């Protein structure tokens, strides 16, 4: 048993608790500990990725209880890729928070971030459906704290909406899990994959209800239409660096959909069949359209970034919804790209917000240090809209290629929404950076050059460039992972079911 599998969950949990208890009020020490932990997490994630690629899926039995009686964590290529993405984004976000001074505006930024990392890494690694619920709650409760970090009336009230929405989602998740357990008598995902095909005829309607409820829960997490309403208000009001970190949180919804759609409810399961695809695909197309129109009509820069995030989730869910190895590989590439691109856009929006009198796009306002930030905005906009030369273009190309069979509808929606997003980004950019400010207006106090914050944003853009340059090898590796995800025999075998407690 490889004990490193549990490290991405245990390490941030311990460090987070240590920070709250021992490093209270000592910002410098918190920064050093937090950064060191995240660097270590990056190393562990890369090692786990290499391990999963060579050894195949492996289970970690908590307390050495055999599955399905105990809880298991499952490491496979899919989960290792997601954990790697998470730790890379966490490193950039931590650097930006330190460079921009966001972590100074409340007492527990770094500790909350540790708990968020613990929750997200756990959600990626778990092999148990109830455990997935628990890790969802861990990441949510940390995200509530981060969302209202820095305080303020608008932020707190947007936070209440976010919490209320997610609590309803959690209740729905529990209803679905209770149904699943009532029907099958197990919540271990590998065990579910074995038991569902043998279910009696009479229970199949209950199973379909369960599948729909689970999809609703993941749609709330992933901001899929018609459950996307929480996202613009939340992300636009959250601190910029937190919104950037949240870019990977919506991907948890896409990952969970992918995991359940390939393992628990595969398309050849008689009870559900193509149910998931039929539900998600139209919703994803509408999500993409709503996001693109939102980018075009956004009134403020953070809202524009939030709608770009919705559009990217629409594209990601569209690719996920086909559930074939080719589309899943395209979805994984797009998820990697869109997480980094959306995060970059939020960081740039934050850079602008702290140098401009207000963030409304329609009213011109003076801004300090425009040149470099305008260039960063342009790069992030190109990446988010999916224009060459950055990886968004390749990601969309892979998805278009995978959807040749449904070209008339899918290609039209993707291409038209990309065009709308280009228009929206161009409009916002010219309003922000080119429109002369009224002469009597004075810009806000210059926060200084902030080399660390700029470097973090540049690092995100550089990683997008790297994703473009190495698109070939990355796509080959992702295709292997997608094939493994769609062929879950080795995953189920790794869970070593059928033991006795």
């Amino acid at each position, binding site marked *: 048993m490889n004990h490193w599998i549990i490290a991405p969950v245990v390490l941030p949990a311990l460090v987070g608790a240590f920070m709250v208890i021992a490093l209270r009020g000592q910002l410098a020490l918190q920064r050093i500990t937090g950064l060191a932990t995240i660097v270590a997490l990056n190393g562990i994630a890369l090692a786990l990725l290499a391990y999963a690629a060579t050894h195949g899926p492996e289970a970690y039995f908590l307390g050495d209880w055999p599955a399905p009686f105990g809880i298991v964590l499952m490491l496979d290529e899919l989960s290792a890729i997601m954990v790697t993405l998470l730790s890379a984004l966490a490193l950039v976000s931590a650097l930006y928070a330190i460079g921009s001074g966001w972590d100074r*505006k409340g007492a527990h930024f770094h500790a909350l971030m540790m708990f968020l990392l613990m929750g997200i890494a756990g959600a990626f690694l778990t092999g148990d459906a*109830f455990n997935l619920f*628990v890790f969802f*709650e861990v990441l949510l*409760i940390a995200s*509530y704290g981060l969302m*209202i970090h*820095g*305080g*303020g*009336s*608008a*932020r*707190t*009230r*947007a*936070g*209440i*909406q976010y*919490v*209320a929405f997610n*609590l*309803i989602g*959690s*209740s729905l998740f*529990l*209803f679905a*899990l*209770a*149904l699943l*357990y*009532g029907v099958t008598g197990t919540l271990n995902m590998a065990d579910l994959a074995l038991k569902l095909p043998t279910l009696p005829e009479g229970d199949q309607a209950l199973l379909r209800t369960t599948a729909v409820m689970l999809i609703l829960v993941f749609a709330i997490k992933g901001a899929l239409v018609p459950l996307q309403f929480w996202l613009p*208000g939340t992300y*636009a*009001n*959250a601190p910029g660096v937190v919104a950037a970190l949240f870019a990977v949180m919506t991907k948890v919804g896409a990952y969970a959909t992918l995991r359940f759609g390939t393992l628990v409810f595969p398309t050849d399961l008689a009870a559900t069949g193509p149910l998931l695809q039929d539900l998600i695909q139209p919703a994803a197309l509408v999500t993409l359209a709503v996001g693109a129109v939102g980018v075009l009509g956004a*009134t*403020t*820069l*953070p*809202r524009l970034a939030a709608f770009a995030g919705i559009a990217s989730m629409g594209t990601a869910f569209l690719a996920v919804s086909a559930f074939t190895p080719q589309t899943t590989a395209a979805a994984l590439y797009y998820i990697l790209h869109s997480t980094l691109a959306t995060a970059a856009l939020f960081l740039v929006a934050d850079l602008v*917000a*702290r140098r401009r009198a*207000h*963030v*409304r796009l329609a009213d011109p306002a003076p801004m300090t240090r425009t040149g470099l930030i305008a260039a960063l905005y342009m790069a992030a906009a190109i990446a988010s809209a999916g224009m060459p030369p950055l990886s968004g273009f390749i990601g969309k190309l892979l998805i278009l290629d995978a959807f040749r069979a449904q070209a008339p509808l899918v290609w039209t929606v993707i291409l038209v929404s990309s065009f709308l997003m280009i228009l929206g980004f161009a409009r916002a950019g010219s309003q922000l950076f080119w429109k002369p400010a009224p002469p009597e207006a004075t810009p806000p106090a210059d926060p200084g050059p902030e080399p660390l914050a700029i470097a973090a944003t540049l690092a995100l853009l550089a990683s997008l460039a790297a994703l473009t340059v190495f698109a070939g090898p990355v796509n080959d590796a992702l295709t292997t992972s997608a094939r493994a995800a769609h062929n879950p025999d080795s995953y189920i075998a790794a869970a070593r079911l059928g033991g006795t407690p």
Partner: protein
Amino acid sequence: MEALLATTIGVLAAVGIYLALRQRTFPVILGLTFLSYAVNLFLFSSGRLTLNAAPIIGEPSPYADPLPQALVLTAIVISFGMTAVVMIMAIGGYLSAGHDRIDLDARDDGEAGQ
């Protein structure tokens, strides 16, 4: 017993959803609490309803399924913590905004600033 439990869960869920759709934060939080009561009972019933049975395999049979009991315990702890968090946030929002409406004004949007 099944009919009574099913009705109770249904009524609790209906009350929860109705209250969650209200405009002020306090009824919304009450609604979320009712919803969590409904889901806890539902989770409990997923292990089948048995009377006078210990959660131990073997004699005496029938036995009660212990797993839903553990799941309910987890769910209760989590929903308790979440209610506390949302309560504090609601009080914070009320004190800073001067009212406890749950919807955002157009002015609020994206104006959180720094």
